């Protein structure tokens, strides 16, 4: 039988009307915004703060991702921040007193070509040096861990092995948001939904307030956590971000008995698959090529990912798609996030997590809160500054780190 989900209390947070002023305002009530507010309150004692959400809490990418959590990135900077996130994921259910079903069922990244094999082995080595659990599996070991995978050589891109991170896994994304929201609320943070930011008040080059659909709010500091809409907010504030927003689609099947014990990702044939606690198969692939803010993409992208899924998992051939959807992801050219200061004083930005922000949620919150509270970055997010596009110190995870999320 599939797992039963825990019951929730009816109310997890209040719905206050905004005060006239706050010490800090976080724009965006998704996972990253809520985590930021939580760490601002918990680690830095900043409780006179608000999270502004234009829609409903965690109704954007936080409700649309495929919930994969892993830290097997190639480069030191990425491994450090994502591994820190994973360590936080391991303690957060207890810290937040909320079982959001973090399941460390492992993540496999398949290799289908000689190039894949070499890149994968290199990444396993790099991961081990960085204290990230990683191993290389040959096709037989892949089959033992995930018996429904087709490892025969009759397919277009046979499985030549895989990297495996046992501590990786999935969690219930909406429960994660609710867990953070409840704690934020307990700590005195105002979570304000249906409150769209329409502009910023500035005194010279310093931000001093936020114009919203619920009136003007004065604030000392502003933190942007708006993912796909980061460029829109930055434009309102008078600066640019090296971000392109794309639709990223995902889908679920109807419910099935548990057949898929782990998480399988393939960059080469481009699909990633897990089975959620209730039993639906959850699949995602790559972004649509064009820029888009429409929270939907083109069907041929879905068709492509389904073809890949059925080739790798012949058992899925008769599964039915229940639902497809899209989110708007904020991609950067080096496939690494931007967490740090902006050209506007007292305004900070956390964006560019692109197709893989969910896994980074706790570390984004922790480091961004540090950045906002102290005015300078935490050691973990220092390399992820906006300035890297000028200095050339890019953290190029494109293709390096199994970067399909």
């Amino acid at each position, binding site marked *: 039988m599939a797992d039963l989900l825990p019951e929730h209390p009816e109310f997890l947070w209040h719905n206050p009307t905004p005060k006239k002023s706050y010490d800090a305002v976080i724009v965006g009530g998704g996972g990253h915004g809520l985590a930021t507010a939580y760490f601002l309150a918990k680690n830095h004692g900043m409780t006179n703060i608000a999270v502004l959400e234009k829609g409903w809490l965690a109704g954007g990418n936080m409700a649309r991702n495929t919930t994969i959590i892993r830290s097997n990135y190639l480069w030191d900077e990425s491994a450090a921040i994502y591994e820190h996130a994973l360590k936080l994921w391991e303690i957060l259910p207890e810290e937040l007193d909320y079982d959001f079903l973090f399941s460390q069922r492992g993540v496999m990244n398949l290799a289908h070509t000689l190039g894949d094999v070499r890149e994968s082995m290199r990444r396993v080595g790099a991961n081990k040096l960085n204290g990230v659990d990683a191993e290389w599996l040959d096709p037989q070991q892949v089959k033992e861990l995930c018996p429904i995978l087709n490892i025969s050589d009759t397919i277009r891109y046979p499985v030549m092995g895989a990297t495996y991170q046992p501590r990786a896994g999935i969690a219930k994304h909406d429960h994660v948001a609710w867990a953070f929201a409840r704690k934020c609320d307990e700590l005195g943070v105002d979570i304000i939904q249906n409150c769209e930011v329409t502009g910023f008040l500035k005194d010279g080059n310093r931000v001093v307030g936020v114009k919203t659909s619920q009136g003007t709010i004065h604030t000392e500091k502003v933190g942007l956590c708006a993912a796909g809409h980061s*460029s829109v907010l930055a434009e309102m504030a008078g600066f640019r971000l090296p971000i392109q927003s794309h639709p990223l689609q995902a889908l679920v099947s109807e419910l099935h008995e548990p057949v898929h014990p782990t998480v399988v990702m393939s960059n080469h044939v481009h699909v990633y698959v897990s089975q959620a606690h209730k039993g639906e198969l959850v699949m995602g692939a790559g972004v649509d090529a064009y820029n888009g803010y429409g929270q939907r993409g083109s069907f041929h992208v879905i068709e492509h990912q389904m073809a890949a899924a059925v080739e790798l998992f012949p058992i899925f051939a008769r599964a039915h798609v229940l639902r497809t959807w899209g989110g708007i992801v904020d991609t950067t050219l080096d496939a690494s996030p931007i967490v740090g200061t902006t050209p506007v004083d007292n305004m900070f930005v956390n964006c560019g997590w692109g197709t893989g922000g969910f896994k980074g949620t706790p570390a984004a919150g922790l480091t961004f809160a540090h950045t906002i509270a102290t005015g300078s970055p935490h050691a973990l997010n220092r390399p992820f500054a906006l300035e890297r596009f000028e200095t050339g110190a890019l953290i190029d995870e494109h293709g390096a780190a199994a970067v399909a999320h």
Partner: protein
Amino acid sequence: MLLISCPNCGSRDETEFHYGGQAHVPYPENPAALDDRQWAQFLFYRDNTKGAFAERWLHSTGCRQWFNMLRDTVTYEIQAVYPMGGGRPDRAAPAPESGTASTAPDSTTTGTAAPDVSGTGTGSASTTAPEGATE
């Protein structure tokens, strides 16, 4: 799936095309004169417009020609298809509105209207060369 009207081949499925990102990003006239910040702007910064967006497409499995398209990034409605080197149709009016028109570093080589090979003299033409841009 978008249905795109290639100026040479007519309406075709999106899968026949390749996306080229923002249109009207001119190659710097004097690259050696740029500082790091300006280079970063040219290399990594592109508009990320919510609304009408001028972008480049390549009909890769058809005529293999580049062209520009004006598309709404929220509704995905295609508003216009026009040649490389042509000005944005929705900003056609050349002179009137004082500052605004000039802020957009328009048309691949400052040439106002004439398609391609604008006679502006300077070599830095590379007019239609798709600079790889975004993806």
